[in-house]
């Protein structure tokens, strides 16, 4: 049976995590991607180019201009009946919409899947990733969110799947979009970056993120992340938060600067390939997961590191 993937997109293009969800879906069967949006030809065309995609379903209507769960979930649930699995990336869009889909279908969602053992058996993290549960679902349709870092992204180009228009389920009339304040950045997206430089409470203020961390990130071509403490203190916006209840990242290189290494933070970065910690407290728990630890004052070490790095290619 085919697998339906709900795309996370901005109408013009796909969010990178959608390709991770497509890769996971391809392990289960032929992949159909639903692009629900408004003026979403760009995103639908992008989905059609992914070689793993057999068909794109496009629902282009005003109620889907923003991914409002009240409008999108009935559409997904209506289509889902023809599929064995319905997947989405565990982005804030997927996390918001998919449980609503699952409840409409009377099935128990499986969140944040890390591994697919069989068509009905999945591995997912619990307790901030301190334990991994293998669960088997008895539901007729499996509704699943995928942890992007666990599935290498599917190829984005080379395919040419047909695009089929599907009807819209209308406006539920329950919610409307008012405004957004999106962080603007020239940097790579946090969850897709090859290198991430994160700052914690040790940064002391937001100005220091600009003075110390950003030049380092620029030199590395890195995304900038943060601990919860740094976000709570207002040093950086909420979308920088890495951790159990923020974003999960697994870059080739993760630099934790002035971060103690609480389990909630580790939950979001401990699958990084190489971890570097800079912290003045040699007992900080972050050193227990760091491949390379540098003990000392970040305000001295970070500029030194930035200066010592080769210029960016």
């Amino acid at each position, binding site marked *: 049976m085919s697998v339906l993937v709900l795309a996370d997109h901005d109408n013009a293009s796909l969010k990178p995590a959608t390709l991770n969800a497509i890769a996971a879906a391809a392990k289960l069967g032929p992949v159909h991607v639903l692009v629900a949006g408004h003026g979403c030809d760009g995103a639908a065309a992008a989905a059609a180019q992914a070689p793993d995609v057999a068909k794109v379903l496009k629902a282009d209507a005003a109620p889907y201009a923003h991914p409002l769960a009240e409008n999108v979930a009935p559409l997904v649930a209506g289509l889902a009946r023809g599929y064995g699995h319905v997947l989405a990336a565990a982005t804030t869009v997927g996390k918001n919409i998919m449980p609503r889909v699952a*409840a409409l279908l009377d099935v*128990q969602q499986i*969140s944040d899947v890390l591994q697919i053992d069989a068509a009905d058996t999945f591995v997912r993290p*619990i307790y901030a990733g301190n334990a991994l549960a293998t669960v088997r679902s008895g539901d007729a349709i499996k509704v699943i969110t995928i942890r992007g870092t666990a599935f290498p992204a599917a190829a984005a180009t080379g395919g040419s799947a047909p695009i089929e228009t599907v009807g819209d389920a209308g406006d539920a009339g329950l919610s409307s979009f008012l405004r957004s304040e999106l962080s603007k950045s020239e940097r790579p997206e946090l969850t897709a970056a090859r290198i991430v430089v994160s700052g914690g409470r040790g940064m002391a203020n937001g100005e220091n993120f600009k003075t110390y961390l950003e030049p380092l990130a620029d030199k590395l071509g890195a995304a900038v992340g943060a601990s919860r403490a740094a976000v709570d203190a207002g040093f950086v916006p909420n979308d920088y938060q890495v951790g159990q209840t923020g974003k999960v990242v697994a870059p080739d290189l993760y630099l934790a600067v002035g971060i103690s290494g609480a389990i909630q933070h580790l939950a979001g970065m401990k699958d990084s390939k190489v*971890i570097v910690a800079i912290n003045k407290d040699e007992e900080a728990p972050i050193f227990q997961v760091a491949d390379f630890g540098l003990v000392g004052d970040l305000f001295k070490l970070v500029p030194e590191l930035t200066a010592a790095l080769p210029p960016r290619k």
Partner: protein
Amino acid sequence: MKILVGVKRVIDYNVKVRVKADGTGVETANVKMSMNPFDEIGVEEAVRLKEKGIATEIVAVSMGPAAAQETIRTALAMGADRGILVQTDAELQPLAVAKLFKALVAKESPQLVILGKQAIDDDCNQTGQMLAALLGWAQGTFASKVAPADGRLEVTREVDGGLETLSIALPAVVTTDLRLNEPRYASLPNIMKAKKKPIETLTPDALGVDPAPRLVTLKVAEPAKRLAGVKVKDVAELVDKLKNEAKVI
């Protein structure tokens, strides 16, 4: 407006959770239990809405074993008016919890249900969205700001790209994110007062809900451990290691 808030009893966030040797779950014997931190934020938000004269009554709801009474008492000490315990020793998965809440909504007719965006034990992040679906209500998830306006709610949500503000119809389900507020500590007099507040005990059966789990846990295992790394003496050594050993720069 009457508010229902969900308060789940979970292993305290400071506890280093251990997987049981037989792989059936995690060690819960003699482990400190607390209210799910996102639910504390939910209770705090409800109490603030009451202090502003917007909420009229706050009912704190927990589902689980008899010991979840303590979690309800904590909510009562923070300012909730009364409690409901849906008592069961069976495993409850989010769909079942949402169905039980739906039954309580039919009984209590609240205008707003506030739940945490996720519980820090199963990390599911589902119940609020499921409840909204079952009720046909609007949902304001991952909320960092909630403001009543013209008989609706303006909910500012933490999303991947930053913040987004929606206007949602009431009645509604709101789920809390970390930045919604900073929960208060209950004062000693309020802890004493909470002892006298009523807690009603119900069962899934009495609410007409079959809470049987849909997912069977086959195994719980520890994740692969990272090998301990090394401390480097200075920046030059770090750069050398990253370049020549790890080859990541």
